[in-house]
């Protein structure tokens, strides 16, 4: 048998590691929460580009002097670009223009590259919609996997997805990275991608359970993981290649997006090896679980 690496030997350690990170993530999400981007928090954002670097502190003080107390001023990409964010203190849609005027008046005139305003109501709606969309996606995928495979696989798959999503959210919370609509989009794409991996592994486990009856579940799962390992690594590698290209060359506006995807691919690859297989081991997947009419079975008999 071609079992090169005994993944399942380390399943307990992996399980503990997963649970620890998961719990830390939950705690961080519970206590720190996410640093919500403009899409969800509502508020006003102005991106200004200058010819020469400007003192952020000076801009900040100017804004405070003009009554914008809770404004954040940070560099965006380079020290020539300045991003000003004002929380939604009064739901006022002309804040962007007011800030531009203040800057111009106080000698910080630059090129206004971007102004965004999201009203409090719209922000709340996007928040609800995003959360709901995520749950619906998880549920639909659960249904599909349960329908195509078997409920134990479905449970494994959805546990893996929940694991991935919570850990990525946790990282965004711990490092206080901005969580906006594009990051949410990345998260949903991660759900799709991670599942992709999971299904490939599950598919092979299912196939081996049917054809290689002499192995015990642990060996079976190790064999399946080894068989799919080459593919998992190559796919993750090519995906990471393009994602790093996007992260490095794609510009500041999709940094968060590509970061979430990179994390997603890494965590997703890990979870399709350890979380799904671990779940299947814990749920003690048996031959009977798969003793359903096999569409592929007919093919095998014809083989020499």
């Amino acid at each position, binding site marked *: 048998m071609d079992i090169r690496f005994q993944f399942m030997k380390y399943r307990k350690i992996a399980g503990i590691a997963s649970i620890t990170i998961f719990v830390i993530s939950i705690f961080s999400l519970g206590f720190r929460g996410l640093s919500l981007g403009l899409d969800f928090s509502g508020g006003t954002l102005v991106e200004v580009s200058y010819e020469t670097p400007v003192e952020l502190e000076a801009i900040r003080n100017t804004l405070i002097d003009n009554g914008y107390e809770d404004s954040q001023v940070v560099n965006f990409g380079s020290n020539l670009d300045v991003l000003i964010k004002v929380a939604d203190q009064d739901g006022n849609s002309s804040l962007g223009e007011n800030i531009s005027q203040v800057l111009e008046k106080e000698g910080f005139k630059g090129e206004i590259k971007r102004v965004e305003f999201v009203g409090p109501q719209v922000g709340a709606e996007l928040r609800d919609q995003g959360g709901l969309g995520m749950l619906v996606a998880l549920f639909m995928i659960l249904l599909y996997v349960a329908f195509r495979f078997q409920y134990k696989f479905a449970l494994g798959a959805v546990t893996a997805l929940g694991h991935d999503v919570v850990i990525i959210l946790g990282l965004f919370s711990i490092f206080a990275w901005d969580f906006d609509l594009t990051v949410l989009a990345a998260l949903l794409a991660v759900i799709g991608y991670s599942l*992709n991996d999971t299904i490939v592994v599950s598919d092979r486990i299912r196939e081996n359970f049917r054809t290689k009856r002499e192995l015990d579940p642990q060996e079976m799962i190790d064999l399946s993981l080894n068989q799919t390992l080459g593919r998992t690594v190559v796919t993750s590698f*090519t*995906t990471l290649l393009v994602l790093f290209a996007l992260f490095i060359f794609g510009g500041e506006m999709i940094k968060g997006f590509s970061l979430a995807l990179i994390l997603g691919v890494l965590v997703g690859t890990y979870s399709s090896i350890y979380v799904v297989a671990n779940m299947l081991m814990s749920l003690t997947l048996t031959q009977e679980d798969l003793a359903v009419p096999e569409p592929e079975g007919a093919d095998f008999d014809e083989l020499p």
Partner: protein
Amino acid sequence: MNKFSIYQYLTILFVLVVGFTYALPNLYPTQPSIQVAYTDSGKSADQSLLNELENILEESTSDYEEIFLRDNKIVIKFSTLDEQLNSKTVLQNKLLDKVIIALNLEPTTPDWLKNLGGKPVKLGLDLSGGVHFLLEVDIDTAQQGRLELLLDTYRKTFKEDRLKVAKSSIKDLVLSFEFKDKDSYNKALKQYRTDSLGIAGLQYIITERPSSNVLLLEYSDIALKDIRDYAVGQNLTTLRNRVNELGISEPIVQRQGSNRIVVELPGVQDPTAAKKIIGKTANLEFRLEANSRTSPLRKEEFKFKDNEYSTAFLERGVVVSGDRVTNANTGFDESGFSQVNITLDMQGGRSMQKATSGNIGRKLAVLFVEQKNKSELVIDENGKSVIEQTSYIEKNIISLATIQAVLGTSFRITGVGNPQEASELALFLRAGALAAPMKFVEERTVGPSLGKENIELGMRSIMIGFALVILFMTLYYRVFGIAANVSLFLNLVLITGIMSILGATLTLPGIAGIVLTVGMAVDANVLIFARIREELKEKDPQSAIKDGFSRAFVTIFDANVTTLIAALILYVIGTGPVKGFAVTLSIGIVTSMFTAIMCTRAMVNIIYGNKNIKELKI
């Protein structure tokens, strides 16, 4: 042996030809052009305007390539951006306010492609630069307005029918009448019931309080839907007119949901000016000036818009409101002074006639009604402080003129000062023709330089990502890798072609979706190749290829369906740029399945299909 039937090859060829054809328009560069339309949106551009423009351009030194008429507009193409700007200035100086001139970039798609329906992919606002606004129509105010009109109507009706009214008022969107006797109460109830009958159903919800002779009236859901549809529809029309005044080549003004309107203005150079014109959340009221006989309860004092120290007393009753104004423009009277011509709709004309017939010599005021927002921190029931937004209404007089005759659907205001003041008043009148006030609930502005930067960065990431993947695949899988790379390239072409056919919009996250697809699309081929490698241990090359492809198919299909589910949900919940991501991701998944399975197989079949291979390098 691994062979496709001739039909399979033809199908693949057909799909690829279609994909290539519709992706082709994206390779042609854009050409600077200007679009000219009449300021009066009721008038469409014609041959005479075309000739006029041609003459002006001939006389000046500016050069142009082509001039033609298309959908109510005249399009003039130039070979350089300088000529474009130059000609715009020349035309604008000659024609002034008669026309609206919009700068544009015209695609140079050749005619044969255009005839096939070929067009370049549309760029989202984050790539083209421009503004996105989401406006919310204040339905409560529209309803309040309607109720006030209703109150007036019933007061008159009841008076004519000699019903004895004790009190009448509107509170919390409920119209209330108190009568002095049972007889009046019953008659009014009967009147209400008759009036409530509509085509779609009952218009009113009537609450009877016979003990105190009070009748309460509210609009039913059916009536509210009508009010909402009317208000949003009227505001849409007004917004379209205002947007036209901006001279943008391809604006979008659309209803979203029950009471919101999306306005997208690609390529706007000055978002602040755009917002000023769009955002005039205003309405108008025509009212009579109060005279000595007006009771103090029936009059109100207002400030003038251009001079807040002078005021005038106006009657409370509204003669005509802004939603009845269909047009307003400037002109000159017999003695050469500026005037403003106003056109009302039929109902507005009738009300105006009624109000002015007995009142020649009195003054008629135009009130400009603006909605302004005020927010304050309040403590909610959970003890948390939340922001509560309240809007208040400010009304100022923009014109107070003596009625010289009985007015109807069209009349004029003379003595309005200089031509500039006249055109300002006309603009206010047009701007004020909104059925209900609106407020901005979302705004996203992307400067033109940022849009360009985003395209460059996005395209660069696609190129670099693509190059890396191609390099890796070639090194790792050799011949099969090259087949997979060709498929990957075909995949990019098909995505572009399908986006052009569907008229989908490309956004920055959309580009990221394409990049992601490039990375993920090789997955199908990697799965197949890995499978072939495995099968090779037990089988001869030809059956290994055959089984490798067929075994991997189920896995590929399952894996892609789930990503597609996630992408579709994203499409439903996402807005703007994120929707763009969902679109390219979905398209990419479908096309990558086609190219990775069908096209790679076809190539492998052509290379290895008919040979007796001893050893397969993979």
